[in-house]
């Protein structure tokens, strides 16, 4: 079985598509997370393949489903954006030989294929649908929801994992060379840090609306506070440190006005979910969380760096698509878990949604109000990547757990958790899911 990448037809990129045809008929049930770590320590049991198997098995167990009932697997095959196996570095043969292999020796170490996972999870005897959702869990969730809705699979696992090696992030791989083909030559090889584009947009945002970087501090403090209540996350597990305004504002610039903590910390992690039809989900161990819609943005910017005008136009468009397909309005959102890695674009997502009625240029003022999980306007209750490390997964896990009422110390209490939204990554170019405690 060769796993295909999801075709464009599986995504809802356009406005005017109406209510999603599978609204309320697909559900997330099980959640599984492997322990996090800052970097891979070289052991077989902690490689990205191993932690992925761990997360998948936990999701299966959490849902209370027999492994032979699972017939689908959606995987994000890329497990890093900036930690690459150095060319010429000896392969870790002891690790490679600890697993059933594919024809790529770094499968399970620096990347993940569905074939590698199936070869190393013998309990998954009936998987006949596999597909890649490229990039992020946000993408893979769209693919999974659509696949279940379309009847391509009825009980489907979806997983996203991250590896991190020693050395500086974004400095290795092709970036270590002297030449790159195409746009990356400008944006990666000779360009600024990864957060450069977002920093430019944020600087223009501050100029246009008369705001300051200091106004981000309450959001950062709140996000880390929520992250420290996320037992699956890196900061909660390894370095339970708050991020008070003094600490945030004293940090050095990476790409001014993006400082160190505006950039998420790369980690090893794996998160998995079990999706099913709403009907089958009724008999599983956890309460189903229904998918009301998925929506995507595939907008291409006019140049290398999207302008603020382009960002605002596209986040507004994304917001409209999200609400249209779900058949809801901004007023129906109990909370939002839009992406935050880089933290400086969270407000773009928030304003595009019109969350709690805020308009463009108002999010930083909104951050100065009560945005805690105890208040009426919870912002990023997951804590996102700021709160738990680089994964692009926490926001989704939190939506599921909030709506199942099992977010623990992170449970929102200022509102009744009924409908949530999550997704990202970038303001231009992302995938979004609307979650609900009820199918209606």
């Amino acid at each position, binding site marked *: 079985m060769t796993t295909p990448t999801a075709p464009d037809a599986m995504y809802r990129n356009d406005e005017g598509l109406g209510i999603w045809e599978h609204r309320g008929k697909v559900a997330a049930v099980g959640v599984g997370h492997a322990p996090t770590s*800052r*970097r891979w320590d070289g052991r077989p049991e902690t490689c990205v393949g191993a932690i992925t198997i761990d997360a998948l098995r936990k999701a299966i167990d959490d849902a209370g489903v027999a492994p032979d009932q699972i017939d689908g697997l959606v995987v994000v095959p890329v497990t890093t954006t900036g930690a690459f196996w150095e060319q010429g570095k000896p392969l870790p043969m002891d690790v490679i030989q600890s697993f059933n292999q594919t024809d790529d020796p770094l499968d399970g170490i620096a990347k993940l294929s569905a074939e590698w996972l199936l070869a190393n999870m013998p309990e998954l005897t009936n998987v006949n649908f596999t597909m890649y959702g490229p990039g992020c869990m946000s993408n893979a969730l769209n693919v999974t929801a659509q696949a279940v809705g379309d009847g391509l699979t009825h009980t489907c696992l979806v997983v996203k994992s991250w590896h991190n090696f*020693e050395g500086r992030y974004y400095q290795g791989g092709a970036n270590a060379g002297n030449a790159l083909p195409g746009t990356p030559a400008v944006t990666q090889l000779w360009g600024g840090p990864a957060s450069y584009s977002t920093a430019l947009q944020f600087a223009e945002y501050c100029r246009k609306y008369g705001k300051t970087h200091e106004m981000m501090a309450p959001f950062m403090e709140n996000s880390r506070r929520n992250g420290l209540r996320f037992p699956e996350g890196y900061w909660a597990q*390894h*370095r339970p*440190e*708050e*991020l*008070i305004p*003094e*600490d*945030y504002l*004293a*940090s*050095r*610039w990476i790409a001014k006005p993006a400082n*160190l903590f505006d950039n998420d910390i790369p980690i090893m992690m794996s998160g998995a979910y079990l999706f099913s039809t709403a009907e089958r989900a009724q008999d599983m161990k956890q309460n189903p969380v229904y998918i009301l819609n998925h929506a995507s943005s595939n907008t291409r910017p006019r140049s290398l760096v999207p302008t603020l005008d382009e960002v605002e136009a596209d986040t507004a468009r994304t917001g409209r698509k999200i609400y249209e397909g779900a058949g809801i309005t901004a007023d129906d959102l109990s909370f939002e878990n839009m992406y935050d890695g880089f933290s400086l674009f969270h407000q773009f997502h928030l304003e595009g949604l019109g969350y709690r009625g805020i308009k463009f240029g108002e999010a930083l003022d909104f951050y100065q109000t009560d945005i805690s999980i105890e208040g009426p306007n919870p912002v990023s209750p997951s804590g996102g990547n700021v709160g738990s490390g680089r994964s692009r997964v926490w926001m989704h896990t939190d939506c599921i757990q909030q709506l199942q009422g099992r977010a623990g110390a992170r449970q929102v209490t200022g509102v009744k958790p009924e409908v949530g939204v999550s997704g990202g990554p970038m303001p231009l170019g992302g995938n979004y899911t609307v979650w609900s405690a009820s199918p209606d």
Partner: protein
Amino acid sequence: MSENQEQSVTILISFDIDGTLEVGDPPGPLTMDMVRLVRDKDFLIGSCSDRTLSSQRAIWADHDIEVDFVVGKHMLPDVKARFEADVYLHIGDREDLDRQYALKAGFDFLWPDEAVDHPHFQPEP
């Protein structure tokens, strides 16, 4: 510098944490006892790290070591402006964020492995 010379001059040491001190992530070769040793020699000491200021303070408090400063990576020039010393030394494990920053700020620089064997970190006879 001989031990006699060492006693007659004011020496300031800035410690990176991760990859430098044993409590770092990853752990480095400099032990907290070595830090205590230079503290007992009346060196001015502190940390210069990408960790938050409050978490740096917490590390020192957890090990009952009184330090003169905690600063971010980019703040070595502030340390030099605040403290008068004859020798300014930064110890860290990164070329870009430790060595280059230190030299630019007018500090001497040692890699952690070099520092372990340096006379500063040897007990007085």
